[in-house]
């Protein structure tokens, strides 16, 4: 793990860290997220929601993207804007199409054991998009606006900003 630029100050608006692809590092990512979201001005409830979105993205990156291969890495990038927090998480996997993930709220899927991670990310963040770049990996971008006044959504009801680009 590369050194963290702690302590964060309002002047340091970008945080980048590269973590080994190990489930133990999910909690490290959560801790960084809490600090960054706090510095960005989000209240405790919002910090927890952002933290959970990062948790689910880290799980996707490590488990599904990097196939739990500890020789691979996950790259996290946080950028605090005046009105929003932008989080990018990149793995070294081969990409996925979020539109192919079944809606976990459908009655047939309600008792499925898996398939709620992307739904929770969409519920907790204002924007979510996935980009796969051949030879590089999959990059997820999530945005949370400050004082958006948006309560927790039912995931997937606000997909206007979602995109899935494949560059080969």
């Amino acid at each position: 793990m590369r050194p963290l630029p702690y302590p964060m100050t309002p002047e340091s608006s970008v945080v980048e860290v590269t973590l080994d692809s190990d489930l133990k590092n999910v909690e490290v990512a959560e801790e960084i997220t809490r600090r960054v979201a706090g510095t960005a001005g989000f209240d405790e409830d919002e910090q927890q929601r952002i933290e959970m979105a990062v948790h689910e993205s880290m799980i996707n990156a490590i488990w599904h993207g990097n196939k739990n291969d500890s020789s691979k890495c996950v790259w996290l990038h946080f950028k605090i804007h005046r009105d929003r927090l932008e989080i990018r998480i990149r793995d070294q996997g081969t990409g996925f199409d979020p539109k192919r993930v079944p809606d976990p709220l459908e009655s047939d899927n309600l008792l499925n054991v898996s398939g709620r991670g992307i739904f929770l990310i969409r519920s907790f963040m204002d924007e979510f998009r996935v980009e796969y770049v051949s030879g590089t990996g999959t990059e997820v971008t999530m945005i949370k606006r400050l004082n958006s006044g948006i309560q927790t959504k039912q995931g997937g009801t606000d997909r206007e900003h979602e995109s899935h680009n494949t560059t080969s």
Partner: protein
Amino acid sequence: MSMKATIRQVDSVTVVDVSGRITLGEGCVQLRELIRDQLSKGTKNILLNLADVTYIDSSGIGELVSAYTGVSKQGGALKLLNLTKKVHDLLQITKLYTVFDVHDDEAKAIASFAKPATA
């Protein structure tokens, strides 16, 4: 903090006091093995006390669903007790709050196992 579970028997109900994190990996595996162990012993009524669960993720929610369906298939019932706000909110947005029988009073939860389920 990883997941911890303490099992106690109250009347015909096996109460499992769960604490810590129910997340992908250790926490989910522990919960899965605990439920499997109880089912193998013929346990029918399980009450999961989640008061001290500090974190649950999508995999943890999936594990609760798996436990619920596993116990139901064996003719038993799995109910939830003392949800934290975080767990409550997650079950609400995933529409699972109406699937699970959720209680905030242990004595009433225990008594509910003796009654036939109502729609």
